[in-house]
């Protein structure tokens, strides 16, 4: 669809038809208290040259890769994206495609989404995945609502090691409902403390992130069994799905729903968005699942075809009884993830995951040698928390001047963890990059 602005003549002619003297007159029904009676405080339009210069100046103020070596993940991960992904993705069939309601003219888009569902379901070890949601945080909130729908219970329990932003979105999302949110603390080994779980009644869901915000791999099997014992669903969330290239999938460990962020899978970080909400579950729960779904079928001549299916769960048919008020998907990002996963293949994803893990272990070891403490002993993937020496804030500033961003202060989110920093190492960091960081640490 093109964007064609109206000319002044067209606007005048339309106003004439409805009998309004001016645009302000047209909006006169909006109470004056709801209207802005000042001009917008916006700069004048710029020429293309000036605009480019302005944006360049902006970007010079930002520490961004590859110029900066950024050792932070915490929900957004820097990975190499094979050039074939942006190239294929820029094809107009993918970039400008609209909701594929008409299967007879949308087979390409529908098949791309179907492949996305297949690949994300396989990665998560689930039987069915939807066509994607906005991002990991809203996908988690939707999973909690789904569990409430299925169980008819009102209490949801979240690990405090779920990404703080995810938990904040969940608070917002569930605020208008009568659901109660309870947070579980963490144990000294960096995993979720489930000990208070049996004392909680009326549980709809237990949500655990793995790898969690501290980078620690949670033992999902145990929370799954404990949740099921109480008639609740286990929701496995994640910010780094690449980890499942080497870890057991949430589905194989007993999770009922796996939902989280898919940015890692071929989507640029772009300062925080757009992301990709992965959402997968068991086939027996498919009718309670939110979001759009593409299915494979055969046409009247017996040929393979793809269509939107089980749409009766969705808002345009089910109205207020729909499983969610999201009846769209994040198609372009989902297609990027499909291309990325297809490029790497199962063995490529496994190798890449191993590489991420090994590199992070290398930095962990180097930091240990330099006297930093690793407070949480449990195994990690490509992120870990290190307790740095008291003067580290100054060292970190010095490193920043050398274009190295040395970890995220965990204290911002967990005030009790002073001098603790969350480090991330992906395949984008070389051994030299890590050495540059480590040698700046004075003993």
């Amino acid at each position, binding site marked *: 669809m093109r964007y064609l602005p109206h000319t002044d003549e067209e606007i005048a002619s339309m106003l004439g038809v409805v009998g309004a003297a001016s645009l302000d007159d047209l909006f006169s029904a909006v109470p004056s208290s709801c209207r802005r009676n000042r001009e917008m405080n916006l700069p004048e339009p710029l020429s293309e040259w000036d605009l480019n210069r302005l944006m360049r100046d902006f970007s010079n103020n930002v520490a961004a890769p590859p110029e900066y070596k950024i050792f932070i993940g915490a929900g957004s991960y820097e990975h190499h994206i094979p050039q074939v992904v942006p190239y294929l993705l820029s094809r107009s069939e993918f970039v400008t495609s609209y909701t594929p309601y008409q299967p007879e003219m949308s087979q390409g888009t529908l098949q791309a989404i179907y492949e996305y569902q297949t690949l994300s379901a396989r990665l998560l070890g689930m039987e069915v995945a939807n066509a994607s949601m906005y991002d990991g945080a809203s996908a988690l909130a939707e999973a909690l609502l789904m569990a409430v729908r299925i169980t008819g219970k009102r209490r949801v329990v979240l690990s405090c090691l779920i990404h703080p932003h995810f938990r904040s979105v969940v608070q917002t999302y569930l605020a208008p409902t009568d659901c109660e949110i309870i947070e579980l603390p963490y144990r000294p080994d960096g995993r979720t403390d489930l000990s208070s779980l049996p004392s909680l009644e009326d549980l709809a869901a237990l949500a655990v992130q793995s790898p969690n915000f501290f980078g620690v791999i949670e033992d999902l099997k145990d929370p799954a069994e404990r949740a099921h014992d109480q008639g609740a669903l286990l929701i496995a969330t994640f910010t780094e799905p690449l980890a499942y290239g080497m870890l057991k999938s949430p589905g194989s460990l007993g999770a009922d729903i796996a939902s989280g962020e898919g940015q890692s899978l071929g989507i640029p970080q772009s300062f925080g968005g757009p992301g990709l909400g992965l959402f997968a579950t068991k086939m027996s729960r498919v*009718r309670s699942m939110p979001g759009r779904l593409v299915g494979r079928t055969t046409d009247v001549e017996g040929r393979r075809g793809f269509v939107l299916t089980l749409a*009766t769960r969705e808002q345009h*048919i*089910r109205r207020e*009884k729909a499983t969610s008020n999201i009846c769209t998907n994040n198609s372009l990002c989902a297609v990027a993830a499909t291309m990325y996963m297809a490029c790497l293949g199962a063995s490529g994803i496994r190798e890449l995951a191993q590489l991420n893990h090994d590199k992070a272990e290398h930095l962990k070891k180097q930091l240990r040698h330099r006297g930093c403490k690793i407070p949480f002993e449990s195994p990690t993937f490509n992120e870990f928390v290190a307790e740095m020496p008291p003067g580290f804030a100054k060292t970190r500033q010095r490193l920043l001047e050398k274009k190295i961003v040395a970890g995220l202060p965990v204290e911002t989110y967990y005030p009790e963890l002073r001098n603790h920093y969350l480090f991330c190492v992906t395949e984008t960091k070389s051994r030299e990059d890590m050495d540059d960081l480590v040698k700046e640490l004075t003993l």
Partner: protein
Amino acid sequence: MKEISELRFPDDFFYAADHEWAKPEGDNVRVGISDYAQDQLGDIVFVELPKIGDRHAKGEPFGTVESVKAVSELNMPVGGEILSVNKALEDSPELLNKEPYGSGWMIEIKPIDTAELKGLMAKDAYLGLLKGLNP
């Protein structure tokens, strides 16, 4: 869709205005949807039924029926406790199209008040309603 005259409405059933039927079976009441309802819905692909032991008042929703073109709520023709549900519909929802009064039954209720059956329509009244809907 069929003409009203082609549809079947057994004499010994009670009918609700939103097209469920109720049939007393001893102390209990069996519930399903009428031949008219299944015909209007078309090919039924899924039926969502309540849990045994659930209690609903007359008129409250107890489940949903989904066809290739629509989803409809199922409402209790009489209030009561769910004693059993027709498990066969899980795998064979088409039974609803084939035998809406027989193997396509949905739930069996222990009614709170059998007098509520009297608020439902007998065959002739229901036929009158349908003819009003389809003049």
